[in-house]
């Protein structure tokens, strides 16, 4: 299967070249080459087990955590391979933030959840730290709801608020690329709508890559879409093109709901 590569009109923020990932010798991702455009939302779609989460986790090296993961190929940011041995993981993850499927606020106050990153990475404290925290909470559209209870536990928030707290926590570290692994799948429809609006908003200033199993969501929030199946990139293009005029029959079948 050969991926349909349309050249993005925008500058590339992060790019995979022939990226393969195997767990315990079983291939989860097979030779994916994909350039993610800067300051745009890219959705990764595909049936369960197609490798979309694996691809996402390869972009900030979260797969390093899995003992028997083997990774080959390259992932380039500004032309530099993030799998190079000299790469500083802390620096990489400062640049490439991540939000998970299930909100995972730390068991500390709302303020501390957001402050932890900038304090540890940039040594901020006092007024400067407060400003960064407020700014991140505003960008995550959570500030108005929590500004009077910043000392409260992050776990006391609702699921949707927790997820926005996790987004704020990520933004406070000042990343350029935001990875989101099915960020709404554990949330109710209203919280989902809020997060979707937020993603659209963030897409103007950040490079956002969202894994989703919700096709309508991909259609609503993304500028570009990649469709994966059996660990391979089947098709990639502008979201309107993928959804209205898919080039490949597999994509069409999936989009039309014939499987998956």
């Amino acid at each position, binding site marked *: 299967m050969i991926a349909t590569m349309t050249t993005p009109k925008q500058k590339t923020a992060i790019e995979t070249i022939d990226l393969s990932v195997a767990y315990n010798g079983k291939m989860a991702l097979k030779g994916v080459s994909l350039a993610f455009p800067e300051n745009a939302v890219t959705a990764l779609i595909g049936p369960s087990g197609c490798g979309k989460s694996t691809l996402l986790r390869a972009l*900030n090296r*979260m797969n390093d*955590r899995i*003992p028997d993961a083997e990774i080959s190929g390259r992932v380039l940011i500004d032309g530099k391979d993030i799998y190079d041995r000299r790469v500083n*993981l*802390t*620096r*990489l*993850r*400062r640049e490439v*933030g*991540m939000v*998970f499927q*299930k909100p*995972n*606020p*730390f*068991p*500390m*106050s709302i303020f501390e959840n957001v402050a*932890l*990153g900038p304090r*540890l*990475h940039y040594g901020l404290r006092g007024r400067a730290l407060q400003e960064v925290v407020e700014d991140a909470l505003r960008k995550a559209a959570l500030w108005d709801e929590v500004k009077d209870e910043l000392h409260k*536990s*992050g*776990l006391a928030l609702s699921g949707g608020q927790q997820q926005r707290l*996790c987004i704020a*926590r*990520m933004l406070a*570290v000042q990343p350029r690329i935001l990875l989101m692994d099915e960020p709404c799948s554990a949330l109710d429809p209203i919280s989902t709508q809020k997060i979707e609006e937020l993603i659209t908003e963030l897409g103007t200033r950040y490079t956002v890559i969202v894994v989703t199993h919700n096709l309508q969501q991909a259609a609503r929030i993304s500028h570009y879409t990649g469709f994966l199946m059996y660990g391979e990139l089947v098709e990639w293009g502008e979201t309107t093109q993928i959804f209205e005029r898919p080039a490949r029959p597999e994509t069409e079948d999936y989009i039309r709901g014939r499987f998956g």
Partner: protein
Amino acid sequence: MAEWEVLAARRDALRARKNALLTGAFGAVGLATVLLVFALVAIIAVNGAPTISWEFLTQPPREGMSAGGVGPMIFGSILLMLGAFVMATPLGVFGGVCLAEYGERSRLMRLMHASVAALAGTPPIVYGLFGLAIFVLKFHFGVSLLAGWCTLTLFCVPAIVLTTEAALKTVPAALIDGGLALGLSRWQTLWRIALPYALPGIFTGVILSLGRAVGEATPVLFTASVYYSTAETKLGWETLRQPVANLPYYLAEGYRQPGVVPERFIWGACLTLIMLTLLLNAGAILIRSRMRRRYL
């Protein structure tokens, strides 16, 4: 359709009978356990309570131990415990962190885990003799508070290591992922996220092992104890090199030499020791629930 209902009705009746039987059996066993513990405490309380007075709790023994109180023994027990707490907590927590962090990958760590588990089950008298051989004799600490601290520390550490490890393993992987994805180093993730999360569990382990240590006579038997002390308790550097009186040893010796210590004093000291450990545990529960209420 009707046959299915007949079949199901038979099973339902059987299930209900089984349920009632098992509920009764478990209830009875549970009740028996509670009653046993309650009876134990009640007997000691009834026999010991008349002896308890301010004088008994604070004064040293007088008139050949037939009068006065057990003040120095209480003080000595608390002193022994505090030292063990200060020394054993960092060692045990550090050990637990090592096992939890590196435990599964390396064979050496698996061996360490098995050894620590074995040590946690080692009888206290073995620690007592080890302490005698190493701290009292080899290191020339003599029978002293210092040797007692070291021995009790060894006694407490394995249990603290195991509970710390277990507490750290309850930290959700999602939290660790969250920390790492934020760019925190492994150490920062451990220190800032995993340890605070596991703290109530670690704390419980520390208190439980201290509670056990304060009630054991054998680790301090040859390393730190004197039978009684009539002197006013003074604290100073020399205290470190002197033996201390303590409640478990007082109980053991006092009971072994009938006629010297009045029986009511034994009951009173028994009750005091139980109260001390209960107090310790109650304090632990209080602090722990506060910790939990804060952010969990």
